[in-house]
């Protein structure tokens, strides 16, 4: 048989994680641009305060993006992310008490509710064999309705201590939670379920024939996604210090944007939620850049839309170039 022709390890690593690499490059560019514009406007470089605010503002999207990413990797899409955030946000604002015990129990309870929402999605998609986009469209309406039932109007309160833990205004302590997220994901990835999540995203039938527990993997992916969305709801409520049953609505689309900016293929089976975390930060940096470039905030969506298309086009062009090089 022909002689082995192996690629260098680092080339292979870059090629196989093109999305992650590209999103990291995108983030670096965004940060440099931000620093430059910030310097031009303020006469100094951004410091600790800016970092802390940026991190705190991005945390909900970090988890919403990761939630979306897991479902996207299975080849689905989760439109109910915003609904779960609405619901968990409302629940947290209503039930969080001042005692540490109450905070712990309430946090666990809220995450469990998120998991239950995900379970509903997962069961319908896996056992009902329905299209994820449609199932989550329907459950989005259900979760949004439940959120308004729980908390009919913005209100409720969040104990200061809780905010201090999740969205400390002093320093970007929240980065710790991102590390936790990454570690948890690295472990999940190293279980049969983790393998299954990628396998079903690649090819459902092939996964089944390879002995993968398709249904279990799929349901777990949605449960994880629901739990992560619930965490996003908690960060949102901690940051805002009060609840709002509709504040999560925008997160469905924003989470998709984070996934796309993270270079994760919407066709499934490829990419990692870590990219979505990076994508979330890119997304926040764009808003920051626009702010310091003194762009009318009314035009914000315009630029976000343009950046989204440009990012996708760049990703496509670069990966095409890389592939051409690989063939040659």
């Amino acid at each position, binding site marked *: 048989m022909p002689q082995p022709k192996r690629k260098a390890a680092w080339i292979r690593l870059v090629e196989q994680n093109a999305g992650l690499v590209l999103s990291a490059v995108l983030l670096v560019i965004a940060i440099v641009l931000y620093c430059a514009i910030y310097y031009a406007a303020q006469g100094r470089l951004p410091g600790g305060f800016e970092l802390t605010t940026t991190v705190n503002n991005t945390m909900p999207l970090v988890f919403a993006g990761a939630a979306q990413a897991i479902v996207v990797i299975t080849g689905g899409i989760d439109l109910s992310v915003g609904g779960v955030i609405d619901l968990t946000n409302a629940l947290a604002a209503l039930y969080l008490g001042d005692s540490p015990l109450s905070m712990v129990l309430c946090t666990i309870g809220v995450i469990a509710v998120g998991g239950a929402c995900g379970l509903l999605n997962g069961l319908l998609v896996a056992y*009902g064999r329905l299209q994820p986009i449609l199932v989550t469209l*329907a459950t989005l*309406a259900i979760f949004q309705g439940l959120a308004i039932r729980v908390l009919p109007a913005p209100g409720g309160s969040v104990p200061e201590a809780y905010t201090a833990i999740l969205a400390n205004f002093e320093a970007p302590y929240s980065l710790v939670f991102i590390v936790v997220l990454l570690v948890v994901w690295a472990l999940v990835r190293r279980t049969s379920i983790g393998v299954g999540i990628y396998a079903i995203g690649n090819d459902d039938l092939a996964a089944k024939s390879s002995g993968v527990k398709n249904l279990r993997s799929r349901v777990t992916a949605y449960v994880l996604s629901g739990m992560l969305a619930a965490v996003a709801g908690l960060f949102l409520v901690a940051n805002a210090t009060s609840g709002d049953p509709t504040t999560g609505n925008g997160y469905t689309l924003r989470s998709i944007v984070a996934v796309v900016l993270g270079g994760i293929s919407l066709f499934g089976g490829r990419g990692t939620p870590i990219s979505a975390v990076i994508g979330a930060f890119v997304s926040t940096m764009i808003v920051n850049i626009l702010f310091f470039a003194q762009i009318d905030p009314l035009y914000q*969506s315009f630029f976000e839309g343009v950046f989204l298309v440009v990012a*996708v086009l760049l990703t*496509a062009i670069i990966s095409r170039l890389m592939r051409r090089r690989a063939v040659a």
Partner: protein
Amino acid sequence: MTILEPSTNEPPPASAVRGARLGVTPDQRRILYAIVAAILLFFIGGLIRPGFSSPSGIAAVLTVACFVGLVAAGQTFVILIGGIDLSVPWTLNAGAILMMSTAANSDARMPFALLVTLGMGALVGLCNGVGIAVFGVPAVVMTLAMNGVLEGLTLGLSGGLTCSSCAAYAPPLLQAAAHGTILGIPAILYLWLGVILLASFILSFTTFGRGTYAIGNGARASYLAGVNVTRTTIILYVISGAFSALAGIMILGFGGQAALGLGDPYLFQSIAAAVIGGVYILGGRGHYVGTVAGSISLVALVSVLMAMNMPEYGRSITYGVIILVLLLAYGRETAER
């Protein structure tokens, strides 16, 4: 030329065989379901509140359904090729505001304003179509981004709807057209009927419609069969953009004034209407007639719930549950892959 006996057939999809036996294809059956659902809902509505299923009650539901149906027409076209148009909300909203500010209360400027507004919708669709078909951006991303672009432009250019021309009303003629009746039937429904006939004709009787279904069933195979995939895709998104703008115009005429966030409900409703009407979300199967029935069922459902004095959250939940139930009913057939 055959010198050998027939080779055995491979198994066809069970649904196809069953459908052939009944003389109704599964696609047609799903359309029937949606129609039956609509009729049933009118019946239930009549039981809950007398007058609900009176001619004027039905007309009221149909008028609202018309708005959904117009948006869903474009949505159906793009879903048929396995795409989706998420730029609907702000295309519609931008359309309404552009119509209002361009016509500036004047009937005389209305034809010009109509042209500009529909042209804007078509242009949005053109950008979507080119991004998707030429540059290969996934439809979800492209139209999502386009929605943001339009939102930003609409808000920015109108100064958050504070511009001087933003204080205008819909031209009287447009308002009259939206509210008027011909032979006792709302004028707007004639427009819808026209759209229904046109869309059905395009889908069923033209080479363009045939190409659309082919792309939905397999884009690569269509390309290799000589179908102009790029052009067809672009045209379909142009149609979708134009329909969103048209819906914006009609909603403006109906409401008199445009507002921000006007288009938000129509994204999910247009998708839901198409799906309830049996359009397969991954493309290739379905018909606008089904979407029409889906739009009517959807609006009738919301109306019935409102007639029951159900609060907003209850309507939202019920709406979600009903879609799930319908999906489970349909899904049993599509599951036979």
